[in-house]
């Protein structure tokens, strides 16, 4: 890139410059997309039968819950916070929902209860963070403990779910395109959550305030933006997503187990970060988090294709997370010097 003013002739250079000045925050997203594409290509070249409609469709099916969690987590991380409670809240709402279903409560009542429960756990975290100056890490840790304990309080053993409505979410395979492309209602829910999350972040004052807080909370306050309300709401969104993930995960496994989702908070954070969201807040996209989840899912699928230990998944994710964090660190360091 050159130094001179770029306002006159629209050359390739100016086009790139213009793109960069407008869309610099999308660069990490494209990096994640590139990694996903490379993974697809590599896996296809290696296995020969990786890029089939069936495998790709399963990618969404198997990771629908993670996708929903990642959307909620993106909201929180964009404000500069973190939510460690999502896995445990997912397990707790799943357990409570399953036990209510077992007791004969109809699904249309159970599902809203699960959602409200998740949202109120999120609200609890938000109140601790916002009103009592507790670090997000500690506040959500307490919620994680609480939710995990509550999950075991519901039942120590797993609870089977045979509610037709819940199972329908998972078992229905809608042919999405010619061939063996398919999508389940859980997949549709996950996609809808992504779309809703993306729209809210891009087109509402709430969404823009989230970015503003992540950019500089003090500045956002000086600008007269509703910082307190927005931060609370971000944790509520994350909790709500955890509740919804509880529904989807219950449908996915056909049962609830109190140990569900151990370590899922880390997978979620890793997916969000790999998807290009800065952990310091203020930059990132829900679509990126979706790519991050797909990267995670692809690694998992590829490892099972290899027949290797599933423990490689976490190791690979840890390595990728490290790579992204270091790169982010370099980017931040460079932009500081400007």
């Amino acid at each position, binding site marked *: 890139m050159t130094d001179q003013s770029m306002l006159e002739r629209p050359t390739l250079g100016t086009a790139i410059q213009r793109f960069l000045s407008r869309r610099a925050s999308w660069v990490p997203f494209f990096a994640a997309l590139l990694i996903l594409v490379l993974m697809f290509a590599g896996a296809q070249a290696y296995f020969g039968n990786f890029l089939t409609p069936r495998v790709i469709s399963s990618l969404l099916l198997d990771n629908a819950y993670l996708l929903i969690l990642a959307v909620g987590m993106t909201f929180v991380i964009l404000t500069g916070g*973190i939510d460690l409670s999502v896995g445990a809240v997912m397990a707790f709402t799943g357990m409570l929902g399953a036990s209510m279903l077992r007791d004969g409560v109809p699904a249309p009542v159970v599902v809203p209860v699960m959602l409200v429960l998740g949202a109120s756990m999120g609200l609890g975290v938000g109140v*601790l963070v916002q*009103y*009592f*100056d*507790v*670090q997000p*890490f*500690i*506040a959500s*840790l*307490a*919620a*994680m*403990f*609480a939710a*995990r*304990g*509550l999950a*075991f*309080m519901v039942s*120590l053993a797993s609870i089977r779910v045979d509610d037709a409505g819940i199972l329908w979410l998972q078992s229905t395979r809608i042919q999405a395109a010619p061939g063996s492309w398919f999508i389940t209602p859980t997949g549709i829910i996950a996609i809808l959550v992504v779309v809703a999350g993306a729209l809210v972040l891009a087109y509402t004052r709430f969404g823009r305030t989230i970015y503003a807080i992540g950019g500089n909370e003090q500045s956002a306050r000086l600008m007269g933006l509703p910082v307190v309300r927005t931060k609370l709401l971000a944790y509520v969104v994350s909790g709500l997503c955890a509740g919804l993930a509880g529904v989807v995960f219950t449908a996915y496994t056909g049962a609830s187990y*109190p140990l569900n989702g*151990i*370590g899922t908070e*880390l*997978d979620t*954070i*890793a997916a969000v970060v790999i998807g290009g969201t800065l*952990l*310091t807040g203020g930059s990132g996209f829900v679509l990126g988090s979706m790519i991050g989840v797909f990267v995670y899912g692809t690694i998992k699928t590829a490892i099972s294709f290899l027949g290797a*230990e*599933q*423990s*490689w*998944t*976490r*190791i690979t*994710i*840890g*390595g990728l*997370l*490290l790579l992204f*964090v*270091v790169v982010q*660190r370099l980017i931040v*360091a460079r932009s500081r010097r400007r």
Partner: protein
Amino acid sequence: MMNVLRHRLFWPIAALLVLVIVNTVARPSFIAVTVQGGQLYGPLIDILRNSAPLMLVALGMTIVIATRGIDLSVGAIMAVSGAVALTIIEGSPDPDGMGTVLIAIVTGVLVAFVLGLWNGFLVSVIGIQPIIATLVLMLAGRGIALLITGGFITTINSDPYRFIAQGYVFGLPFALYVSLAAVAIVALIERRTALGMLTEAVGINPEASRLAGVRSRGIIWAAYAVSGLLAGLAGILYSSNIMAADANAAGLYIELDAILAVVLGGTSLMGGKFSLAGTVVGVFTIQTLKSTITFLGVPPAVSPLFLAIVVVIVVLVQSPRLRGWVARSTRWRVRPAASRDTEGSEVAPS
């Protein structure tokens, strides 16, 4: 001096005493110590013995937190060191040999130390936030442990190794000696060298410390290395207790227990002044609390709920806003703030 010491540890000790008293009232056998074959048994002895891994981890966590950091990877490091040690013993022709066991322990702890060095490198040299830097290993560590054990729960039979967690010396559990020795050594290093004071200085004010010529990078690096080393030792203790290397269960949530113990002991998560004695009290408190929960007939799996309640109470007590409310309602000043100068108000934009 005595005043300060009493003040700082008053509440942690009071909390521990209350727990012990409540337990004793509920079941007088709680403080009973029986002697069988020259060895002491009883709930209190169990607490002392079972708290050993947490004690080791919490000691390291105290140092890390004093530097304004946090180490989330301790549980995963425990899993790795246990896996390394047990895999060595399992693969050895002589699992009962003293030499085999020693090599296994030293290797396991060394691997843990290297992992700690890695954390410290990410934090102090690369400059990644401690939560994230240690999150990497928290994620990958258990995977590595699973790889080492080949995805199985490695079980062994080795009497010397069993002795570490289950043996008795002079009537007391050997694990207790290990944890006491760790406390003594860490206290000695921190308080008999200048490390403790310099660590606190770095935690309180990194920039002022740099200007005073303190080698803050090295101090932070060392803190994570020590934390890794102690977590490695804890992993040995844990695996010796169950005589198995369980990559998924070893040290699960211990980082949270350790953080809680440190905070209960009066060390602030904001770094700076730390109290090893407080951490020791905090560890015993948590272990007693867990024992209480079990005694109440609550399944151990539910115990996180109680820990969560404790965490919330502790952070609320530390919260400036709540203190403000209390101060306002009682018209009682919490802390004299004479350190503010007139220029303090001018420093920001001017």
